[in-house]
């Protein structure tokens, strides 16, 4: 099966600019996640979708970050305006279904964002 696709792989922007990331999950995967991974740390969940509904966005800085999942498939994550501390790798992941016990996640290779 094809893996989780993300684009772009790298992005460099200046602070206060806006940026958008795109993710295409594995076909048939109902649950989609966006994680932020700062250098040297583990991934931190930003937002979780079940189909096209938001399940959890408690750690999403909603004053500058937004995300949507179109028709329950592709997803975009936007930052506007960006801050220096947003420099990180943004990882998209998907899983087959929201089930107990928690299904393993399949990750894309991420987008490395540098804010100067």
């Amino acid at each position, binding site marked *: 099966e094809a893996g*989780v696709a993300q684009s772009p792989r790298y992005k460099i922007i200046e602070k206060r600019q806006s940026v958008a990331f795109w993710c295409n999950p594995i076909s048939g995967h109902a649950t989609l*996640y966006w*994680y932020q991974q700062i250098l*040297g*740390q*583990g*991934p*931190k*969940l930003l937002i*979780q979708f079940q189909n096209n509904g938001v*399940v*959890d966005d*408690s750690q999403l800085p909603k004053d500058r970050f937004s995300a949507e999942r179109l028709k329950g498939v592709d997803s975009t994550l936007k930052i506007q305006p960006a801050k220096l501390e947003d420099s990180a790798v943004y*990882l998209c*992941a998907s899983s087959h279904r*929201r089930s*107990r*016990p*928690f299904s*393993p*996640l*399949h*990750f*894309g*290779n*991420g987008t*490395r964002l540098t804010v100067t």
Partner: protein
Amino acid sequence: SQQGEEDPQALSIQEGENATMNCSYKTSINNLQWYRQNSGRGLVHLILIRSNEREKHSGRLRVTLDTSKKSSSLLITASRAADTASYFCATVDITQGGSEKLVFGKGTKLTVNP
């Protein structure tokens, strides 16, 4: 929220040696997962161990779980240079809204020298 904490933060060994990484967590779990991340890539799921299991094997990987100590260990036997990566444990946390989310530790960076 609970979060797995890996130990050590970094580990450097010679090819052929065994590598052991530990993970401690705070609250009760129904499963614990281990992931690997190669430099510049996404995370890859390695193994899942359920709370009623004490040990699980997958190829050169052996995972143990001690729920009384709230800890897990990942053992890689006969390590290879290709095992060089960061390894993360992950546990399920329940959000305020009652949904489940997977929470990762900070990881152990393993370097296997040829």
